[in-house]
């Protein structure tokens, strides 16, 4: 029994170290992943949809493909379309029934404000609020913004505002204990997924 207690203590220590590392250094890194100060302060087209008492993050990634090659991957976002280009196997552990498309589907390209974007099969959804092809796409304040760097490269910036965390104690605990880290993992996974797919498409 003493060996088992020791094992439990070591696991708890490992988890405590992870929590300390997260709050001590990883969290700030997450919030503004690969962005400059001006990008963090920049106004995004979907900012009007951001509610008060939300936690806002801005993240960026450089893609070796022009905006017009990147945008079709963003346009087909959603469980009811081409997936989220993230870790579908991880999303499916939560019953999302997610499939990431590996090609551009023309039937999903004509997205309009008011269209529904599902996060998982029969799970939560949001509404597309703004869209300007090859420039930006916003799902209720979650905005994907594309900037050309030159003729062959673009920069994808994503601004995300969380749920209103001060609604209740439960929401606050849920957000800080689970949602924030999971969202970071999935959103950065999505950005890398979009980059990977757009670059592969460009070289083919």
């Amino acid at each position, binding site marked *: *029994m003493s060996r*088992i*207690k020791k*094992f*439990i203590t070591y*696991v708890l220590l*490992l*988890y405590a170290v*992870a*929590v300390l*590392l*997260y709050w001590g250094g*990883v969290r700030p*890194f*997450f919030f503004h*992943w690969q962005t400059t100060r001006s990008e963090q302060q920049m106004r995004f087209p979907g900012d009007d949809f951001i509610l008060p008492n939300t936690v806002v993050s801005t993240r960026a990634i450089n893609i070796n493909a022009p905006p017009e090659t990147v945008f079709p991957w963003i346009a087909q976002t959603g469980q009811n379309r081409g997936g989220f280009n993230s*870790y579908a*196997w*991880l999303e*499916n*552990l*939560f*019953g999302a*029934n997610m499939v990431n498309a590996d090609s551009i589907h023309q039937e999903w390209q004509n997205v309009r404000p008011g269209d529904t974007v599902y996060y998982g099969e029969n799970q939560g959804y949001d509404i597309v609020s703004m869209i300007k092809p090859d420039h930006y796409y916003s799902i209720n304040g979650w905005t994907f913004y594309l900037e050309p760097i030159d003729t062959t490269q673009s920069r994808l910036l994503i601004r995300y505002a969380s749920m209103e965390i001060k609604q209740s104690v439960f929401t606050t605990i849920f957000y800080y*204990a*689970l949602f924030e*880290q*999971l969202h*970071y*993992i999935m959103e*950065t*996974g999505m950005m*890398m*997924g979009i*980059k*990977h797919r757009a670059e592969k498409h460009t070289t083919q």
Partner: protein
Amino acid sequence: MKSPANNISDGRLAAKGAILTTAAIFIYSLIVLLYVVLRTSFEIANKLPVGERSSIIFANAVALTYTIAVFSLLMVLVFSITGAIGALVIKRLVFRFNPQFNVRKTLLFSGMVGLVLLVLVYVVLRLLLQKWMTLQYPETLLFWFVFPATICFIFYLISGMAFNRFLLTHYRVLEK
């Protein structure tokens, strides 16, 4: 002869059951952690250039550990109660129906109690998570119930054997 039952208080036994189940859940959480960290790191390494990889792989591993820590602590809350109840039920069954502390009988009781309690956990999860706890969503069912339940069941059998060994030792000591 003094009954060995007097030497094992219900509180201590329940605590041991809860501790063993906690260990089982932590073993499962470490397996899951290893799997998700390796798989996501491999995917990141495939998508990002060499210079940009290491910091995101590290941050990702920390975030995953945090998330799994929270999930496993939530699972410990549910499963450790069943572990504590299970230990007490096994004790009652052994003293009532297996006074000779036959190891096979104790194993049978441990297995049966483990199975019944895990079925109860499944019923609760099925009520809470509904269709996500069915074969319609195999990944969800395996990840949230089948794998942790299998590890818990194995722990029930190992604990049953250890409990029987403990009883035999005490019984002989007390008989002398």
